[in-house]
């Protein structure tokens, strides 16, 4: 059917959306809404009682604890160090700064399987860091829960740095100067004047990193031993369920993760709105 024909057929007063709109909605419909709808429909067919039972089996609960707990640890670590890195990038000048800047983006660019392989190699008991850690403290990193956390730290580092950096750069120096002039120490100035303005950005970065770390599969699956109740993450459990042809359980646990993603997207958006309002007040 040609567009010309369509145009002739349209009822008066109703105009067809432009071509870009048509492409956008068709594409979104086929690529996103159709698979999304299929999963929600499948999940709805399970029924609320069955859904709750399958979503809260001891096995599933254990993976939630690993995924959501370790991701929280990882994103909080990055909340602190991400701020330090952003501060170093914006507020100081030192040799190798541009290399540091470029390295921050490596976790975005590096395929997760490569990241997983690299981290496993470094943190296994005969790796560069794994060996000294194991000999000195008896800590086993790779193929145990700490390894999962390390992988999550790796993939979620850029988020905090890249959200805090622009805000820190746009801060007006005058406020800090005023604070110094009024007799505040550099520490007081940082804690009372600078950090409150950065807070929405830091939390936003942490939330984005957390959301990414919870859903991460490629790098974690390689460094984890994937033992249930120990270091098995939720995405790996979904894949195991699929391999056992337990489609219902996979659907239910997948839906739990999907609901979490939607919720985290909402939180991230609210944090962004908060950050913008905050900056608006300052201006």
């Amino acid at each position, binding site marked *: 059917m040609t567009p010309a024909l369509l145009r002739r057929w349209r009822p008066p007063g109703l105009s067809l959306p432009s071509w*870009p709109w048509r*492409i*956008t909605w068709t*594409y979104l419909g086929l*690529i*996103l809404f159709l*698979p999304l709808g*299929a*999963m929600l429909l*499948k999940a709805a067919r399970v029924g609320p009682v069955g859904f709750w039972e399958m979503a809260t089996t001891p096995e599933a609960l254990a993976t939630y604890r690993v995924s959501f707990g370790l991701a929280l640890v990882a994103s909080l670590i990055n909340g602190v*160090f991400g701020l*330090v*890195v952003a*501060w*170093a990038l914006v*507020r*100081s000048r030192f040799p*190798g700064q541009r290399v*540091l800047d*470029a*390295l921050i*983006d*490596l*976790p975005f*660019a*590096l*395929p997760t*399987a*490569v990241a*997983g*392989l*690299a981290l496993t*190699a*470094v943190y296994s008991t005969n790796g560069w*860091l794994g060996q000294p850690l194991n000999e000195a403290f008896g800590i086993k990193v790779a193929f145990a829960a700490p390894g999962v956390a390390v992988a999550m*730290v*790796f993939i979620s*580092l850029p988020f905090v740095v890249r959200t805090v950096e622009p805000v820190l750069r746009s801060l007006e*120096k005058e406020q800090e*100067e005023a604070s*110094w*002039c009024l*007799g505040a120490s*550099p520490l007081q100035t940082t804690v009372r004047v600078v950090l409150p303005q950065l807070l929405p950005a830091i939390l936003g970065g942490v939330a984005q990193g957390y959301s990414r770390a*919870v*859903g*991460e*599969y*490629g790098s974690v699956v*390689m460094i984890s031993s994937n033992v249930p109740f120990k270091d098995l993450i939720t*995405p790996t459990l*979904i*894949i195991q369920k699929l391999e056992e042809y337990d*489609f219902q359980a*996979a*659907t239910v646990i997948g839906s739990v993760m*999907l609901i979490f*993603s939607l919720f985290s*997207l909402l939180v991230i*958006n609210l944090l962004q709105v908060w950050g913008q309002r905050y900056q608006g007040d300052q201006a």
Partner: protein
Amino acid sequence: MTIVVPTLETSRPTPLPGKRSRRRGLDLPAILIPLIACLYVGVVILLPALSVVVSAFAKGVGPFLENLGSPELLSALRLTLFATAVAVPCNVIFGLAAATAIARREFRGKALLLSVIDLPFSISPVVVGLMLVLLYSPNHGLLGGVVESLGWRIIFSWPGIVLATIIVTFPFMAREVIPLLEEEGWEQEEAARTLGATDWQVFWKVTLPSVRWAALYGLILTTARALGEFGAVAVVSGNIEGQTQTLPLFVEDAYKNYQTELAFGAAMVLGGVAIVSLLLKILVEQVLEQDKKASRLPQDG
């Protein structure tokens, strides 16, 4: 404690704490912060990255190149390149269409639509794969019957891999182009239209050139992610060696089967692509920055 009261002439003083601590000796935070930052990034990012390079070339360049000639690796590479070659152009078209449709209009639900486009970033790749299985799997999928009656194979075959790659990478392009178009405004397009240009001419000769660097930036991000996608592809591909195994899947498979050298060889190829994309990205970023400055200047003046 001395309080320095600035006079009007010194209303823009150099940061006072710097001055004060220089008098005392070393400015501790100024040294510690970059040091901690470098150490942290060094341990978390640089060391693992270096370990891949070292392990890949552990036995020299010869064995490395020999590993690259492995037929399984080559077939995995071919599939990865194929999936990327299909997924990226699709997403470029969608990204540009979505950007021109959304960026310059204000309508109810615009923020929601932008969030919807961002969804693949926050959904776990494994869940993306699962969604495709629940839609197209011959026995358990919603459209399984339709797919089978048409004689298609989507899950455990290349169309599934391509679809998974498309879903995971489609937001990049739109996300990079939309903010730029929002900033630039309508004037040039309107001028072109008044002069009698068709929609297509306006897009091709006015809109596209004005966003070319942002589009290129989006293209680089899309390609890098498409080449490296793991989770979503792992669910739908079935991971059949030599048939539906992409290069990232090959890395994991080889490592789990104790073919460590092969795994690191393949990882080195993917890592090399990642580094090239990173360098290209930095280059485009600089051009974008200059472009923005250039376009701002006349407005400021």
